[in-house]
């Protein structure tokens, strides 16, 4: 039984194995095989298709591609902003600043970087990214002339690195200034990080976890309070007076001054607020303003637009006029107009065809004809007693037969 079954199966298999050798109807099958036999996945349109190379020229694909690319470009706009204005990256913000590179199919995270979007910038300028970008454009028909808008050029990257370096120098200098006099008094633990920063300074720009922890202003309580308090105000004044443009330095200065004031006013034992709370709000606000300024602006615009009433609504022009009139009446500039006793609202009558102005005209005409009729009928309306012919003819004082004319 089983063998029979196998035998039957083998025949149909034999037929399909040789498609080309059958009649003309198989030509269509042949064509199908040649043009689109295998299903491919298009990441842009997010669908499987068997159209092969033709798919990238279809209008639906082109639409989705342009949408995709414009979305990526808008994400890049943020990165480019930080390319032009490098700012320090706090570890708490690092988790927010990752983005997905659609060309490389990789998630670019900002875990170890000290500057905003530095990992992203490095990725976008890398050779691998360029390769995958070219491949993507070829595969999905993006247009090779737009390559530069999706990557960062080397010249820009070098400029950015220089700016980062200067930022770091300034930060380190201010650190040194602040921490310099301490070195004699404080423990060796604090010396080490300072030295570490100075050494690594020229070499690489990426990982500074120690520095970031100091930047947060979480200074351990190993200092002698007296001498530091005397020294700090001078030093804190210094960077401020120098008017260094970077937010990094100013926040440092504010940190230290807060530190210092708290040392004077209160501490853990007196229950004062810890210094990092006050200062972190400051720096958070600054950072937020910078990175989310664009988003906030667009959002507020949207809110404003939704509060405005639709100008196409019914009677919009009339409403605006009336509002102005009422405002003026309130203020007392215009005396309250008693509206015309003949005023009628815009009304479309039941049996009316045509515009509503016509309905009003019709009504006015009807009114006038009615009035005329009424006046006419009033004139003629005198109640006369009914006099029957018999009475008239016989001249006898009979009882009247009819009633009064209504």
């Amino acid at each position, binding site marked *: 039984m089983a063998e029979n079954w196998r035998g039957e199966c083998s025949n149909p298999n034999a037929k399909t194995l040789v498609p080309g050798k059958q009649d003309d109807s198989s030509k269509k099958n042949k064509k199908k095989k040649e043009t689109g036999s295998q299903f491919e996945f298009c990441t842009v349109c997010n669908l499987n298709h068997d159209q092969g190379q033709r798919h990238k020229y279809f209008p639906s694909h082109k639409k989705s591609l342009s949408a995709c690319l414009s979305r990526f470009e808008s994400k890049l706009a943020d990165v480019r902003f930080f390319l032009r204005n490098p700012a320090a990256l706090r570890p708490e913000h690092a988790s927010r600043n990752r983005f997905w590179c659609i060309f490389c199919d990789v998630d670019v995270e900002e875990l170890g970087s000290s500057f905003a979007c530095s990992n992203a910038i490095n990725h976008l300028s890398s050779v691998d990214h360029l390769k995958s970008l070219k491949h993507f454009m070829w595969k999905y028909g993006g247009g090779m002339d737009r390559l530069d808008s999706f990557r960062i050029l080397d010249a820009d990257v070098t400029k950015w690195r220089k700016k980062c370096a200067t930022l770091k120098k300034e930060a380190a200098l201010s650190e040194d200034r602040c921490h310099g006099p301490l070195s004699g008094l404080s423990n060796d633990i604090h010396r080490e990080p300072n030295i570490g920063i100075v050494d690594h300074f020229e070499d690489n720009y990426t990982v500074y976890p120690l520095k970031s922890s100091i930047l947060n202003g979480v200074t351990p309580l190993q200092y002698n309070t007296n001498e530091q308090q005397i020294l700090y105000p001078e030093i804190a004044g210094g960077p401020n007076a120098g008017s260094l443009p970077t937010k990094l330095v100013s926040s440092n200065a504010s940190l230290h001054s807060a530190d210092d004031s708290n040392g004077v006013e209160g501490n853990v034992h007196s229950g004062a607020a810890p210094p990092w709370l006050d200062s972190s709000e400051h720096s958070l606000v600054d950072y937020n303003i910078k990175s989310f300024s664009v988003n906030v602006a667009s959002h507020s615009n949207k809110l404003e637009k939704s509060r405005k009433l639709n100008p196409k609504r019914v009677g919009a022009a009339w*409403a605006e006029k009336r509002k102005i009139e009422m405002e003026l009446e309130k203020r007392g500039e215009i005396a309250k107009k008693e509206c015309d006793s003949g005023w009628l609202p815009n009304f479309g009558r039941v049996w009316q065809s045509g515009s509503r102005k016509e309905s009003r005209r019709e009504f006015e005409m009807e009114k006038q004809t009615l009035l005329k009729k009424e006046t006419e009928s009033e004139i003629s309306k005198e109640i006369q007693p009914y006099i029957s012919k018999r009475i008239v003819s016989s001249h006898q004082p009979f009882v009247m037969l009819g009633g009064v004319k209504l």
Partner: protein
Amino acid sequence: MSYVLTTLTKKREVDSVIRDTIDKVLVLRFGRASDAECMQLDDILAKSAREVSKFATVALVDIDSEDVQVYVKYFDITLTPSSVFFFNAHHMKMDCGTADHTKWIGAFRRKQDFIDVVEANYRGAMKGKLIVNCPLPPERIPRYQLLYKDM
């Protein structure tokens, strides 16, 4: 007589209500407060007036008052109670599947029906439409026969 809603007896008052209601639907009920169906309608209006107060105003007009007869004729009010809808002093028509699109004749079955009707009017008006479709199913729309013109 509804104590919650304002009753208007003069043309001047009706005019001022129409002109002063800006960017809100105005519902004018024409009827006699003593009539049973009118009382039912008034009840529904009074109960839902507050709920629609953000986008609608409700007012009652007494048909029997002489001053208002102009409006009774202008709006072709023959069957009571009739409710006429306005938005920014423009009359809103509503197609309920009945012969008369210019007003709503009869009472509402439930509060929600009234609220739905007013909402449909408001939405249409905000989009700039002078005639809207009735959101209620036909079984909840009161039926009546409209006599022909000049009869």
